[in-house]
């Protein structure tokens, strides 16, 4: 599918969800279980993206110290935990990855 079609469909769905209850007010009630489930959407989707990026750098599971993305990712986890700052976390992870790539071509 063309990127523009993806954007138009993605935009229509997003608008539809924002408009849904504002438009239908009084006709539906959000089920309690759905309210709870929605809390878990962001951590679930984001983790589903993060894990393959750090554990499967070359489409293969790599838990070794040669996996620079895993080490840089762990660095970011630690920095995010202590600083709770997005920019500092990204910078720390990027600097870690660049330094690892420069100084440790492989163990």
């Amino acid at each position, binding site marked *: 599918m063309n990127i523009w079609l993806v954007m138009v469909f993605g*935009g229509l769905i*997003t608008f539809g969800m924002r408009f849904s209850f504002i438009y239908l007010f009084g006709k539906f009630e959000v089920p309690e279980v759905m309210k709870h489930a*929605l809390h878990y*959407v*962001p951590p*679930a989707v*984001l*983790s589903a993206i993060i894990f393959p990026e750090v554990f499967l750098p070359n489409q293969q599971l790599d838990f070794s110290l040669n996996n620079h993305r895993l080490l840089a990712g762990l660095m970011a*986890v630690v920095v995010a935990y202590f600083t709770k700052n997005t920019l500092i976390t990204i910078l720390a992870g*990027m600097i870690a990855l660049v330094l690892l790539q420069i100084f440790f071509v492989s163990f």
Partner: protein
Amino acid sequence: MRSEIKTFWEGVRAEFPLLVGVFPFGLIYGALALNAGLSTAAAQLMSSIVFAGSAQFVTTQLVHEAAPGVVIVLTIAVVNLRHMLYSASLAPYLKNLSLKWKVLLSYLLTDEAYAPSIIKYEREGITPSSHWFVFGAGFSLWFNWQVSTALGIFLGAAIPNSWPLDFALPLTFIAMVMPMLKNKPMIVAALSAGMVALLAYSLPYKLGLILAALTGIVVGTILEERK
């Protein structure tokens, strides 16, 4: 009219601290979207067509991984599901507005516009001009998002291709997820989604991503219900 303009600016002022927080995300999105292979026009227009930060980051990542369009659209839907909750929560306060206003405010209904708006309504209820507050909060965020995207695209073009910029997206996601992991259901939801994403990675059409996200959501919800 005066009270409407006054309420509009009140919404802008309430939004201001959030604008400061969102601006860097717009910069990062603009810079990374180009790097992931989106055209300048697509990167910029996504910020007004989709207008949803996390969904735009996820779309950028999936375009980079050459995921099929249907999977990207499905993922946008899952990521933005929470907006239905905001819609339901604001609906009683917007029920008397014209359809035009409902459409406009729905388009502008992001996480960051919802937060100050619901606080205002819960404190003061409906007043003749209160929807202008939502408009002020939503519009200032929209404007801020367009400008920061443009600036990010501009700056991103200057970054050398040899930098491993593609890793900045997963790093952004790590920075977003870590503060969410405050209790056991959240942590287990994140870990189970991550594990399934690894196990199901070889499924076609990036379906592993959807399967993993659904697993995390179900596991987290069940754990919370059992508490």
